[in-house]
């Protein structure tokens, strides 16, 4: 009986250990994924930071001088996958400023682009648009490209709200 109790108790302890190990493994795997993402974000030469208003963001260079593609990719989360969407989002701090294909950022420098409106065309500055969609509501992230290497740098996701009807009217 004592033997049974001991073995029963051992089995119980073993089960608890197995479950704890499994839970630990899950947490550690989840942690590893998060850590990998975090490591990737932290090891990227440039950090993208979302600002309070959805679509507003800042880009900071935390390594040596770098040239980034002026065009900024936009991705929408759809059925668990990040999907590229059409957008004219660009690293422009002021509308109408002279523009090349790449933007140089000195070490430690930050650029705060004109916020993205959620539109596919004329999304920051005046533009000639005929077809033009709004992507909200959606989970969105921005994608920078390093000029030359083509390395992609992914920003943190944010929630773009649905298109809100402006009050302007005529």
């Amino acid at each position, binding site marked *: 009986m004592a033997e049974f109790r001991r073995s029963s108790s051992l089995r119980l302890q073993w089960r608890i250990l197995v479950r704890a190990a499994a839970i630990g493994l899950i947490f550690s795997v989840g942690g590893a994924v998060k850590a990998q993402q975090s490591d990737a974000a932290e090891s990227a030469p440039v950090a993208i930071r979302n600002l309070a208003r959805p679509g507003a963001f800042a880009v900071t260079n935390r390594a040596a001088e770098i040239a980034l593609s002026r065009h900024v990719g936009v991705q929408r989360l759809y059925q668990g996958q990040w*999907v590229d969407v059409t957008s004219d989002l660009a690293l422009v701090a*002021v509308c109408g400023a002279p523009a090349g294909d790449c933007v140089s950022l000195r070490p430690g420098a930050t650029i705060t682009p004109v916020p993205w409106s959620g*539109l596919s065309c004329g999304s920051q500055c005046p533009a000639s*648009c*005929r*077809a033009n*969609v709004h992507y909200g509501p959606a989970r969105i992230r921005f994608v920078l490209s390093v000029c030359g290497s083509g390395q992609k740098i992914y920003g943190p996701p944010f929630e773009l709200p649905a298109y809100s009807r*402006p009050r302007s*009217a005529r």
Partner: protein
Amino acid sequence: MVVSIRPNSARITITQRPTVNPPVVNGTVMSFTGRAVTANGEVTLNGAAGDSAAGWTVGFLQAQWIETNWCYYRGRLNSHGSIFLQRARPPARPAQACRDTVTPVGGIFYDTTPGTAEMSQGAAGPAFPLRLTVSHFDQPSDSMNLVEQNATTGQPNFLAEAQLEFFFCTVLTVQDPAGGFHHQASFYWNQRWQATFHPTSFAVATPAFNIRVLQAGTGVGVSHIIRGTPTDKRFTGVLTSAQTQSCNQVVGAMMAAIGPGSVNRHEAAVWRNFDVRRA
């Protein structure tokens, strides 16, 4: 039983009429914007248990069939000259009609981005009748430089007047698994801007203007919903045929084709009155 489109099941509901805003200065350009047009659409497919709706797609197409787009510039003095930019005629814009798409024009539908509300696709083994719903959104805009350099006089010329008109037809359609299109319903809509601009500052980098909206050339129009296949020959040829450029690309090429030396650019050494019907 084979899958088919339920007769008279197509519906379009305009959920927001477009508007136009008065033009405003934004940096170095005059910006013409307005409120979006939005619409919902639905079509029902008939079928029997075991039928597949895979390969059936309901979605919106859009064609632009009129573009008016000109702007007039004047120097500070009569001797500084004037410029007329005719942006909507050949060769800058080879044709009036174009298929208006967000995604590449070869995709036919207005927007083919995965997950877009502009398209809805059937799947295998659905319950029939299958009601497929879609939503449409468009918010056109345009802009033009506040200042153009007159090569004839060597002087800056300032925006004095502009007229923009964009006329569209939006079509609710069904594509069958063989690729054929079955247009169900459509509506016409347009946005129009016309204004004169009177400089209050001739600072070339940061000019300022009194902006006067011309009522007769400003406004919007939205038609009733028209059932059946569009028959308007001004744009039916571009709805689903092979096209090399979307309207956005046509406009992009148009903007690149009005620089110095272009036949769409008319310069004069004085304040000339250009005839917009001929220039």
